[in-house]
Structure formats: C-alpha cells, structure tokens
C-alpha cells in the first residue's frame, strides 16, 4: 500500500453560517475531492445546552467524511488533537475497508471480521496513521461572537502541532480565518510544518458579524486543489516539490 498524504480541513466555529451556499454541500464536494472536513463547535463556558446553530456542526462533518465534536472552550486543546487523529484513523480505516472489499469481494467491513483478524488490520491502520504525511488546513470562524475564544483557539492549534509532530510522518499546517476583510477568508499562515510562531500572527480581534461558512469552505478546499494542480504541472517529482515548499 503506498503511503499517501491525508488532507483535512478543520473548521472551528461557534455558530451557524448565515451567508452563501450550504456548507454541508461544499463539505460533500470536498470529500469527493479527497479532502476530509472536521468540525469543532465551541460552547460558551456557561452555556448548558446546545444552541440551535451548532446542529450544523455534525451535518457538515458527516457530509465531509470527518469527525465533529461540540466542546466548551476550556477543553478545546484535547478535542482538537483527538478529532484530528480520529479522522485520520477513520479515513485510513475507510481505505483499508475498500481494500478488504476488493480482496474478499463481498461487502466486508473491519467490524464484520472476527476480533482476532481485526487486531491485525488495526495494526496496519495504526502504522499508517503514525507514518503517513498529513496536511491540515485550519479554518477559524472569527465572527464577532468568537472574540473571547480566540486566545484558546490559538493555544489549541499550537497544541495540535505538538501532538502531530510527535508522529513519524510529516505534517503541514495552514491557517485561515473567515470572514475575510475583503475576500471570503484571510490567510494567517501559509503551509508550514510547525506552528511555533502562531502567537505572533494569530488575530486578537474578530472581523465582523457575518458567518459565510460555505463560501469559506469552498475557498479552503481550493488551497489543496491548487497545490495539487501545481504539482501536476511541475511533473513527477512531487515529493521533492513538497519538501522545497517548507
């Protein structure tokens, strides 16, 4: 099995989209393009029940083949890394499931196998998760209501890079915020292997009242496709190109 690159978008938001196309539709499209969409919905610390807007969170992640979780700001760090890792496992399991179906013909899934066989397959999935390369584009909602959560989001992203960089595989992160000043989203950090410098570039201020989640997701998705088409243009030595991008 060749060791590919997993591509993920991590959307961090606290409410529902209110402008532009349906984010679930865009997430479906992204998934079809090989990009998984994960969503984390943040609750206010005093919020006891789930507000209406956050229903969208699960819907987007389901459509995007990813994982979703709704959390209080204080447990954001642990959630961000867990969601990312879970989505990796899920994607890799999906790949392994497909291979299984090819080998076994019938509609076999890992869970249909006896526990003993499952163990061997899980080991393969884990090895892949440890060694594969990963690209995560983080898309942060910076609409007005997110104001007091931004420092926590920043810390959790730093923490995410700490977790993922303990793996053997390579990582690349990029960070965007939406709504953008003039466009759908603003670039905060271009593709980089580490997020050490995040505190100097992460916005402290929110950028407006509207939440164009759908359009921002579409833009985010294109950050992967663009790269890929660029690579295709340059030719076969795609891994080398990636390396020089650091």
């Amino acid at each position, binding site marked *: 099995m060749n060791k590919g690159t997993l591509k993920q978008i991590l959307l961090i938001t606290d409410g529902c989209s209110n402008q532009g196309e349906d984010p679930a539709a865009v997430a479906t499209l992204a998934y079809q393009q090989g990009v998984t969409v994960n969503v984390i919905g943040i609750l206010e610390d005093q919020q006891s029940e789930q507000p209406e807007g956050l229903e969208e969170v699960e819907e987007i992640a389901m459509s995007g083949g990813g994982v979703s979780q709704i959390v209080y700001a204080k447990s954001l760090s642990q959630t961000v890394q867990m969601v990312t890792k879970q989505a990796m496992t899920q994607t890799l*399991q999906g790949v392994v499931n497909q291979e299984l179906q090819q080998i076994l013909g019938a509609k076999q899934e890992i*869970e249909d196998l006896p526990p003993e066989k499952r*163990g061997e397959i*899980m080991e393969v999935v884990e090895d892949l998760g440890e060694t594969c390369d990963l690209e995560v584009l983080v898309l942060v909602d910076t609409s007005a209501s997110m104001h007091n959560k931004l420092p926590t989001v920043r810390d959790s992203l730093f923490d995410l890079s*700490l977790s*993922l960089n303990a793996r*053997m595989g390579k990582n690349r992160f990029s960070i965007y915020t939406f709504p953008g000043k003039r466009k759908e989203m603003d670039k905060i950090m271009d593709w980089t292997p580490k997020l050490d410098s995040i505190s100097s570039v992460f916005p402290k201020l929110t950028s407006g009242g509207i939440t164009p989640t759908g359009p921002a997701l579409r833009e985010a998705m294109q950050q992967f496709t663009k790269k890929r088409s660029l690579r295709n243009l340059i030719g076969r030595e795609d891994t080398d190109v990636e390396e020089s991008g650091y």
Partner: protein
Amino acid sequence: MWKSQGINLSPGTVIKGKWHYRSYTIVKKLGSGAMGTVYLATENGQSVAIKFGHNSSSITTEVNVLRTLQKVQDHKLGPSLLDVDDWVLKDGSQVSFYAMEYLKGKELNRFVQEHGFEWVGILAVQLLEDLEHLHQFGWVFGDLKTDNLLVTFPPARMRWLDVGGTTQVGRAIKEYTEFYDRGYWGMGSRKADPQYDLFAFAMVILQIEYPGRFERGTHPERALFMKLKQANNIAPYQEILGKALRSEYNSAAEMKDALTSLLLASPTQSKRNTRAGRKQSHSVQPSRKKPTATVPYSGASTSAHKWEIVGIVMTVCLFYMMYVVMQWI
C-alpha cells in the same frame, strides 16, 4: 449498526459473545473514562472485569497492546486478557468488549489517605519497576494518571490498568491527559520515550498533595515547580520528582534507584510523625551503619554519605596496617 457512548447495564444482565459464546453476568459498574465503561462481572462464579468500548477500534487497539504485554513472560504487566468479543443487543446494534482480570483495590489517593504518606515512596518503587520492564520491552505506558492506577491490598501493590495510551517507543503518545502530559506543561514533546512516563508519574505523586490539581497559568514551568516546592507531604521526594519533571533520568531504573536509596537512608516519614521522624533521621545518619548497606548512588548526596566512605577507607587502612605490622613481628 454500532452502538457508541454511554452503555448502561443493570446488575444481572447476561452478556454473551457473538464469536466465542462465553457468557458473563454483570455485577456492577467499576468506572468509566473517555474510551469505555468497565463492569465487574462473573463467569462461572469467577470475577472478571469487562471493558465495553465507545468504539470498536479502541477496543481492538487495547487488546493488541494487552496481547503484546502478555509476551513479557517473567514479569506481569497490567491485568491479563481473558476474552475479546462483540455483544449483539436486542435492537441489532453491537458493542465490542474485552474481559480481563479483575483487580480489586483502592484508588491511590484513598490508599495513601487511609494508610499514610510513608507508603508513597514504597508504592512508587513498585510502579517504577513495572515501567522499567515495559520500557525495556520497547513500550511506553502513556496515559499514566491516578484513574489508571490501583493499589491492591494486602500485600500492597500498585498496579496499572487501561493500556489505551500504551505506545511503542518513538511513536506519538496515543492517549494522554493534559494535567499529566509533558507537552501540556511545555516540558517536552509527545513522543513516546521513557522520560514521558517518568514525567507523568511525577505528576501522579504531586497530585497526591493537590488532589484538585492546579492550573498551569501563563508560565507553566514556573507554576509547576512552585507547586512542587510547596508540597509538604511529599517533601522528601522533591528533588527526585524535580529531576523526573525535567526529564533528567535516563531510565525508570535510575529513578527507582534514587528513590530506593532515599527510602533506605531515612525512615519513611508520615504526616503523623513528621517531627519525630526528622529528629530520628538526624541522630541516625551520622552514626555509621553497616558498610554493606550503603548504596553507591548519587541520589541522596549528603555529608553522611561521605563520612561513611571515609569510615570504610580508614577501617580498611587500619586492618592493612595491622596486617603489615603482624608480618613484621
């Protein structure tokens, strides 16, 4: 369909495996965590612990680890694995589970509360020995925390459960808990190495003093060492814990040896007799003990140590001189 989250079983429920047909009767809930819920059950009158996973893959991963650990033959690491299976519910959904040895014991903090602080060091040595074996085998425990430790008694023995975080050396720690995590405190990476466990273990001991845990604030390292300095009940271990927190021990064995020589050098202190203990230890140390009892480790470098060595050297010299003199005569 897969059943996730919040399984709730009442006593008497019979669990029968889909693959191996072994059946278990639920007795009571033992506890739950992020990955699963554990029940006490019986199989033919024998007590077992059954862990039901929130998802199938975490159960599979843990079973893999337990199987691997079972290969360390001469040293038992963690509860032994008894069975792995799926349980099909009435509605057709299924839950993955595994049955393991039931460890009957007390939570670490409760044990120390009830039996005294002098136990801390002794129990710690036991766990460090287990860690030593685990590390030599090429694995790191990972999610070391009080919830995942148990003291079986008597004889008192600290054991670990929940191998969900157990990771091969050199890989990314699979599962961790922030308070016990080296990365969270800005004291190192989340790559599995022996020092990762030693850090977490030092935090386990530190939280005995602060059961409510504490915040890292804006200067995590400073906050951490301030708390260590203020920890009165575990004061004798401060230096050793400090070294573990700074990843200064090369191995669990090194930390264990430091702790052992500390325990041997002074009577174990408990909260109840701190003053008496101190006085005693002062009067005991200068008077030379049997030379064989000295441990050649730098762990507790006190002046008493030096005097002992001087004593041995002088004794040897004396005997040698007598020998020489005898030869002359």
